[in-house]
């Protein structure tokens, strides 16, 4: 009852000078409107930014086998042969935080079509899941290879845009045969362009094929990948790099190269079903650490590791990307908040200004109210409520204005916009807070008037 009466008195007092009340609230209207519009547009941009960064692979985890070592010499990550396609299947089956996973084997060799040749930067043997993990499922042309192609080791491949340009000069490669190490592959699809990754590496310079085909037909043996530096250096110098005399291969070969006769005499064990890495995608950025825990537990169990034994694999996330993602979002939010706060403070100062003028102008009214029995705190309450009412009204108008503005932006500029109830709640609270903070001084001043002086005021 009391609050209601005070609120009504405040409304009436404001109603006596509606033009001034309107102009006063304008500061708050614009402030809150800006907050709401910025929050909504910002939230929309932030969401689409998150999506973009996620498509760069922020949710992707890479599992690589640990180091192989011999006589105290370790060969670095990825040299042991403990990771298997079955591990990949198990991860898919048993880790709930993993959205999809694909095994990867790599090769680096020459690709030939007609009289043109090229050494793609990346030649991955994988499964169709790779496209999903990399958010690359939509092809520019043709269709992806299937799980059956993987099972059969079919000689099919997908080409990146760079290869299409280099080998086919932009013509459609679908259905054409290319040769990789003298094995012919049928091109069944073309990947969409992706551009360079964060390291500046061309992601379109890629060939994807079933991992069985790459492993068993192209690389031929697992040991060549286990210690590939010498052999690949040798192959590439032989076949491509005519400048090898000027720039000899960095690594000296300690052992004499084996002739083909020697290789035939001591064949390498070929059908090792190990893979070089697994690429797994977590459901979202938040589930990256649970995914890592689940996979660590699973792989330790599958590899029969005792409690005190170190992991024979390593899992890495795209920490840099994830960090970029979160910094971008916080930066954006903070920027918007700063702008919003400044405009709200300006609005608040405007309110204080007008309330001070109003208090002076209504000195006699205050004196009269005191004479008929208003206590200091009644006066304080009245002016405080007036300021809060001004601010809340301004806040409400600001919400409508801001929301309308962001909808307009969405409609006209096609920017992504997300309605944020939190921003609206915050705007209401902040505008009430501004009213209390900036309305307090004038109200306090009014409550301290001497009724005799106030009544005599001209």
């Amino acid at each position, binding site marked *: *009852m*009391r609050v209601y*009466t*005070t609120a009504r*008195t405040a409304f*009436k007092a404001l*109603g*006596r000078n509606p033009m001034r009340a309107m102009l006063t609230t304008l500061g708050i209207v614009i402030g809150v409107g800006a907050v709401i519009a910025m929050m909504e547009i910002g939230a929309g941009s932030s969401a689409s930014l998150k999506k973009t960064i996620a498509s760069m692979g922020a949710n992707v985890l890479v599992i690589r086998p640990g180091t192989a070592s011999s006589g105290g010499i370790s060969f670095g990550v990825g040299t042991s042969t403990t990771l298997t396609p079955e591990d990949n299947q198990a991860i898919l089956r048993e880790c709930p935080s993993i959205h999809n996973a694909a095994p990867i084997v790599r090769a680096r060799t020459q690709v030939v079509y007609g009289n043109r040749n090229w050494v793609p930067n990346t030649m991955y043997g994988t499964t169709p899941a790779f496209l999903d993990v990399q958010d690359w499922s939509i092809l520019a042309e043709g269709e992806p290879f299937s799980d059956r192609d993987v099972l059969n080791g079919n000689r099919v491949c997908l080409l990146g845009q760079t290869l299409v340009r280099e080998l086919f000069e932009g013509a459609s490669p679908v259905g054409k045969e290319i040769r990789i190490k003298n094995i012919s592959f049928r091109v069944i699809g073309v990947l969409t362009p992706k551009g360079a990754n964060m390291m500046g590496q061309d992601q379109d310079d890629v060939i994807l094929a079933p991992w069985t085909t790459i492993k068993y037909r192209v690389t031929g043996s697992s040991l060549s990948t286990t210690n590939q530096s010498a052999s690949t250096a040798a192959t590439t110098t032989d076949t491509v790099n005519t400048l090898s005399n000027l720039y000899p291969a960095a690594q000296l070969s300690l052992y004499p190269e084996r002739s083909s006769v020697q290789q035939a005499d001591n064949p390498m064990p070929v059908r090792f079903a190990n893979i070089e890495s697994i690429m797994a995608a977590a459901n979202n950025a938040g589930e990256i650490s649970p995914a890592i825990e689940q996979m660590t537990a699973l792989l330790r169990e599958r590899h029969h590791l005792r409690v005190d034994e170190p992991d024979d694999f390593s899992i890495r996330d795209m920490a840099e990307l994830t960090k970029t993602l979160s910094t971008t979002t916080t930066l954006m939010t903070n920027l918007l908040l700063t702008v919003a706060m400044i405009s709200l403070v300006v609005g608040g100062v405007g309110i204080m200004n007008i309330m001070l003028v109003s208090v002076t102008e209504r000195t*006699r*009214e205050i*004196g*009269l*109210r*005191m*004479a*008929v*029995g*208003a*206590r*200091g*705190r*009644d006066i304080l309450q009245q002016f405080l409520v007036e300021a809060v009412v001004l601010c809340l009204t301004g806040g409400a108008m600001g919400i409508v204005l801001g929301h309308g503005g962001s909808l307009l932006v969405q409609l006209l500029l096609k920017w992504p916009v997300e309605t944020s109830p939190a921003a609206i709640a915050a705007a209401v609270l902040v505008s009430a807070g501004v009213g209390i903070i900036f309305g307090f001084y004038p109200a306090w001043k009014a409550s301290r008037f001497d*009724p*005799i002086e106030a*009544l005599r005021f001209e």
Partner: protein
Amino acid sequence: MELIELRDIEKTYQMGDISVPVLKGISLSIRQGELIALTGSSGSGKSTLMNILGCLDRPTAGEYWLDGQETSKLTTDERALLRNRKLGFVFQSFNLLSRTSAIENVAMPLSYAAENLSDREARGRAAEMLGRVGLADRLDHFPSQLSGGQQQRVAIARALINRPPVLFADEPTGNLDSRTSEEVLQMFERLNSEEGITIIMVTHDPKVAGHAKRVIRLDDGLIQGNVPIPEPGTETPGGTS
């Protein structure tokens, strides 16, 4: 019992280092139902005495008993409550809230009253008060739509809304012409005789003072004359010299 009892009231204003005595020991008693005019030349201290009587100001020394309560030591908030319940004020310049209807002006003191009247009750009481001052048909008029006399009658209704025993009027006719002055003064006399409200008017106009039953003359902070004026047909208030 006396309604108002002043004992050796002194008021001294401090102007920097100089202290200016305005009231120099005033003793006075006023009974329920008196109609008093407080006169004196300008600077005689009548406004100061009025402020103290109206509990707007505190005396520097002395005792002020209002309706059996010593008021000179009350806090600001207690005095506000006292003003609300026991005192009514009518001012020279009416002091109505502009752009606020007559009925809301009259109901305004109720919002500070301890008894919480509902909106409807408050309006009903305000309308009744306006009826008593003869403005029953002007409830929703704004002050700017009323004549000076009507505005002063709205102010009287406002002063009486909490049914106070005492009504203070500070130069109530100062802004009115002689005809409306007469109306307002007659209303005071009627309220005094019919409803027994004690009325204390501050004035320097002998014609206004002529309506009072007792004239208290102040000169240089002291009471110089305290004259009951006998009127035919009304009971003479008891002498309090």
